[in-house]
């Protein structure tokens, strides 16, 4: 009798845990993130416009188009390839909510792998979301993960064989958008997503694609631009100018020709676009970090990562000031704006010029929240959700 009561007690406790955690997962997966469209956004489309097979899936994300007042080139920003690197999404957000293209056209993606925004690291006890404070209160964003949600793509193969190179990669990377380029129409959801973006890049005749990322300080490719051969000179000028003028160092690395599936390699190989990837430092991703909290995510402060630095184990400096999210987002906005300026120097007949988006110093001085728009005061029809 006693044993039966104990079993019943454990069963009820298990059910309670299941319901509570299930509700939390459900809320996280369905959290609506408002986007108050900038006056510069002239059109919003769905990714499925370029590949109808993706319609109705988690990855049929919004595509924000900012048509310039004067004609010019086309630049595409991919935010949210790895949503757990939030500076990429947030920097893209500042363009969608503030940007006005004076010359040329800008295409902004906030959730390139939307499925990956709906889950966090399985078994990693990550916070489900985070809040960026703003003058009107604050906005909640899903934290997300590096990989598509297993609810949307399952099962994983034992070994992921990249298409079309045949390169062997870790099984998990079959759900990693930045290992699935150029994608294929009859592949997995993540491969189909890459394929759809590549169709968009080709059909919209995109000149430059920038994929926004963050990296752990123990990873050698950090605080840098990774460039395809086609973008080497552009990237070199951007790197040198940012380092000289904006007060932060931006390195330069070549995209290896024999490392497949990455945007900086495959977009350049399979389209006419120049492909660049920007990396900012994110201590939250370091394996030697302490508590995995939203505070750590947003301040970038971590005594254990600092200690790793003292032992010479890092590729980027860190001190007690950490790497606050404003600094990381500011690096990205400045790098994008500088790419436009450096492109225009070489192609004055096809310029790119974006107004109203803050650069590095201004983002740090005022904070990201200052540039997030209040959805309660958005114009009718100009507030969408991610």
């Amino acid at each position: 009798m006693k044993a039966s009561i104990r079993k019943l007690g454990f069963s009820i406790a298990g059910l309670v845990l299941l319901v509570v955690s299930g509700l939390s997962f459900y809320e996280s997966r369905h959290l609506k993130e408002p986007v108050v469209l900038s006056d510069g956004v002239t059109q919003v489309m769905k990714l499925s416009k370029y590949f109808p097979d993706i319609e109705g899936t988690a990855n049929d994300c919004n595509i924000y188009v900012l048509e310039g007042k004067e004609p010019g080139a086309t630049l595409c920003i991919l935010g949210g390839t790895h949503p757990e690197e939030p500076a990429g999404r947030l920097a893209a957000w500042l363009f969608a909510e503030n940007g006005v293209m004076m010359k040329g056209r800008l295409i902004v993606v906030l959730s390139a792998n939307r499925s990956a925004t709906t889950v966090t690291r399985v078994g990693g006890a990550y916070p489900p979301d985070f809040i960026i404070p703003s003058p009107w209160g604050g906005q909640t964003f899903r934290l997300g993960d590096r990989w598509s949600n297993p609810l949307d793509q399952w099962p994983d193969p034992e070994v992921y064989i990249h298409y079309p190179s045949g390169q062997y990669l870790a099984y998990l990377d079959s759900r990693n958008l930045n290992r699935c380029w150029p994608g294929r129409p009859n592949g997995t959801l993540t491969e189909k997503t890459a394929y759809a973006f590549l169709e968009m890049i080709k059909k919209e005749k995109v000149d430059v694609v920038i994929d926004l990322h963050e990296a752990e300080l123990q990873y050698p490719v950090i605080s840098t631009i990774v460039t395809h051969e086609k973008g080497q000179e552009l990237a070199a000028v951007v790197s040198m100018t940012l380092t000289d003028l904006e007060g932060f160092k931006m390195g330069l690395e070549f995209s290896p020709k024999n490392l497949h599936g990455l945007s900086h390699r495959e977009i350049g190989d399979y389209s006419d676009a120049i492909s660049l990837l920007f990396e900012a430092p994110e201590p939250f991703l370091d394996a030697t970090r302490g508590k995995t909290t939203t505070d750590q995510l947003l301040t970038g402060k971590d005594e254990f990562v600092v200690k790793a630095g003292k032992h010479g184990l890092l590729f980027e400096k860190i001190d007690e000031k950490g790497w606050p999210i404003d600094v990381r987002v500011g690096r990205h906005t400045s790098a994008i704006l500088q790419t436009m300026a450096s492109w225009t120097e070489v192609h004055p007949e096809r310029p790119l010029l974006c107004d109203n988006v803050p650069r590095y110093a201004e983002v740090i001085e005022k904070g990201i929240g200052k540039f997030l728009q209040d959805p309660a005061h958005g114009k009718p029809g100009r507030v969408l959700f991610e």
Partner: protein
Amino acid sequence: MKCISWIITLAVVAGFVLPPASAQKQTVKLDQPVLLTSCGQSPGPLKIKVFFGRLNIDYVYNLQASAGDLSAKKKEGKPFKSLIIVTGASLKGMGASKVSIEDELDRTKKLIAEARKQGMKVVGAHVEGMERRAQGATPGDNSDELSIDAVCPQSDLLLVRKDGDEDKRFTAISTGKKIPLVTFEKNMELSDVLKNLYQK
């Protein structure tokens, strides 16, 4: 005690009056065409290439230039007149080019030997700061320093972004081997430095 005070005072005054290595007058002049290459497959040469293009300097950019390239140009009757080798290694770059640091050191050794044979001026450059030094690399990865050792002590001129000489490594090579050292602080200053070097 008084004597020590005088020595310290003289040393301080000398520090203000005597120019540091970085401020030494740029006396070396270089001729065109230039062969621009790397020892370690880093993206550093690209930074120089950008300014060569803007300055209309006659150059060939070849990250894997060999001694054979120098000989071939000479046979054509259009020999290179100067050689710039940018030091600092990239594991990503070497991996992509399918070469090891040993291959790079061997190629560079032969390249410098051929340049010497042809009487060319050789410039050892380092333009990416401490990130492209052993201090900024994986613990135990000494390939940046190996590339510096292979090139800089055999050069006629050292061209270095100042923050890459934080530990005075290039200053020591310059002083020890009596090789002029030209430094610059900002990337964009490289344009004027190259203009001066190649100005007639």
